[in-house]
């Protein structure tokens, strides 16, 4: 046991762990040449994706497009577009503002008398003519 291998385990316990790990069947050995070729191909794929992305970002059009989208998003967040007013809500608001007329209902209900206002105004003439 090396000095750095502090683990509180007894030799028997260490042996048990070693046996347990060794108990598994050895892994099927890959063909290392094929393995490395496959790895190189995967790495090359990643590199080409990275290069393509790098080139895409380096172009002025994508940068302008991205900046434009980001600005539009920012503006929309800060100043949301005003919605068209809801007509029904507007009606309700107007009616609400005129509710104080109810206090003068007694006047309003007599307004039909005014239809005869012309008659009333000329009442004196009628009386004198009759008189």
């Amino acid at each position, binding site marked *: 046991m*090396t000095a*750095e*291998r*502090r*683990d*509180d*385990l007894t030799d028997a*316990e*260490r042996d*048990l*762990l*070693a*046996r*347990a*790990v*060794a*108990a*598994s*069947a050895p*892994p*099927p050995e*890959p063909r*290392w040449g094929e*393995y*490395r070729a*496959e*790895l190189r191909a*995967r*790495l090359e794929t*990643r590199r080409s994706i990275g290069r393509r992305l790098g080139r895409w970002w380096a172009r002025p059009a994508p940068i302008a497009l991205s900046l434009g989208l980001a600005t539009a998003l920012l503006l929309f967040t800060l100043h949301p577009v005003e919605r068209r007013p809801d007509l029904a809500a507007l009606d309700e608001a107007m009616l609400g503002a005129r509710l104080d007329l109810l206090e003068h209902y007694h006047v309003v209900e007599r307004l039909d008398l005014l239809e005869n206002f012309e008659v009333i105004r000329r009442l004196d003439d009628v009386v004198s003519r009759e008189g």
Partner: protein
Amino acid sequence: MTDDREATSDETLCRRIAARDDTAFDVLVTRYQARAYRLAWSLLRDAEDARDASQEAFIRVWAAAERFRGDARFSTWFYRILVNVCLDHKRRGRWWTRLIARDSDRDSDESLVERQPAIGPDPGDHATEAQTMTRLWKAVHQLSAQQRAAVILYAQEHLSTAEIADVLNVAEPTVRVHLHRAVAALRKELAP
């Protein structure tokens, strides 16, 4: 005659990989491929998954080489990447593994251990030993992924508990607890 490239330390190779030296990458892969694959296989128990995970770990080394600070050994840093890839692989694969396991359980009542390839020849004289080994393997298989990683890094890769703690990103006492619990589980499995 010693090849200079072969004599280069892992840490030096890693610095060269950070400078995008493909030869250094090839040397490092050749140096670690067998260990990486064996460790991945021990954790994943599947040849194709082990191949995939170990290759992914090498690709991550290539991508992150410039972040290797050199304050730990390269092997510890590499094992950390590899173990993380394997644990991620297990987590990702869990949902469909369960589905497949459910289907195959319908087909067969055989246990997972019984479905594994036989552990070498099993002549009559060694029957008891083979059974013991099978039970030990079963016990290791039933440990949690992190416990199993601790056991494998300790007993197979011969890392210290401090190094295992670094690889698994846990405190050193946690590694000791993992090892003691593994021993307890193995003893329980072997109890008559």
